[in-house]
């Protein structure tokens, strides 16, 4: 019984983020979103690929501003340690993002292949056309 109470008390201390970490996290989140905006502005990142990153930045900001949110999510997941919950969520998010990029990459690889094939076939036509013209000129 006493051990349980102690564990519960220990729980309380691990849950709470210090205000210092919260400020650092908030600054990082804002800086991250500014970076995304800057990349879009300079045409280094297309809008359609930036939405997901922007949402991630907002999530970071929300987590820093309302630590209760994190606790809520941890409880929903049935995880006692908020930090573990945080790391798990971030890990899953990154996994999802990596998969998303693999899908995009596969699609683009297929598109590039088809593009190369079309170009190669164009080359056959134009060359055989030239040769046909040449032989015609020779005959004339």
């Amino acid at each position, binding site marked *: 019984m006493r051990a349980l109470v102690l564990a519960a008390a220990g729980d309380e201390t691990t849950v709470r983020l210090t205000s210092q970490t919260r400020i650092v996290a908030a600054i990082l989140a804002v800086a991250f979103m500014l970076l995304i905006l800057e990349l879009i502005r300079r045409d280094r990142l297309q809008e359609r690929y930036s939405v997901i990153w922007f949402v991630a930045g907002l999530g970071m900001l929300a987590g820093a501003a309302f630590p209760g949110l994190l606790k809520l999510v941890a409880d929903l997941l049935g995880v006692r340690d908020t930090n573990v919950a945080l790391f798990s969520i971030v890990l899953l998010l990154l996994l999802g993002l990596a998969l998303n990029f693999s899908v995009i990459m596969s699609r683009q690889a297929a598109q590039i292949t088809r593009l*190369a*094939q079309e170009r190669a076939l164009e080359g*056959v036509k134009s060359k055989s056309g030239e040769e046909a013209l040449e032989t015609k000129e020779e005959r004339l």
Partner: protein
Amino acid sequence: MRTLVFIPAWNEEASIAAVVADVREHLPQADILVVDDGSADATTARARECGVLVATLPFNQGLGAALQTGYLYALREGYDCCAHLDADGQHPPAEVARLLAEVEADRADLVIGSRYRDPDAVAASDDYRPTLSRRIGSGVFRFFLTLATRQRFTDTTSGMRAANRRVMSLFSENYSPDFAEIESLQLAVREGLRVEEVPVRMLERAGGSSFLTPLRSAFFIFKGVVVLLVGQFRPRQAEVER
């Protein structure tokens, strides 16, 4: 009956002219297309000197993409049937003519030239000797492909094939870049096409060497099995043009 014979070639400047000449001799009525898969050497130039059609891919993309280019050309230019063979001189064009005859007679949609179909010939032949890792790989692929298609295949990786327009329209849209030979057989059978093997004689390669080391072979085999497994769960195409 218009026929296209296409030859995928990657860095085959040494052997391409001889192969083209050989095809011309045995298949005089066929148009010839060399698909240069982004060679670093003079494959395209050598092929053009022979006066055949040449499609040059701007960069190397693997055998699957090169073969698909050939099928795409045959489909768009309205050829009735097509065949392909390797550019390294392993495939005698006289045998390709026999494959084409099967397709022209409409006995099959896709015909594969098999080294192993006729066991007596394999035993007696000095022409073609597969290495140990190749034999293991062939065995594994043969087993799984036969399991997947419920049809007996003896030479799953053969690059000597003949096909009609049904196959052209299927392969020009769906052709795996990584596991072209094996997956295409599975695909064709799944789409209800008639696939047939014809025993052929193949020769020792004229130039170049096999890229397969034991470790690579093992990985290749593993990848092939995964590809076949996934292929079993792929949705069928709505309708192959009939």
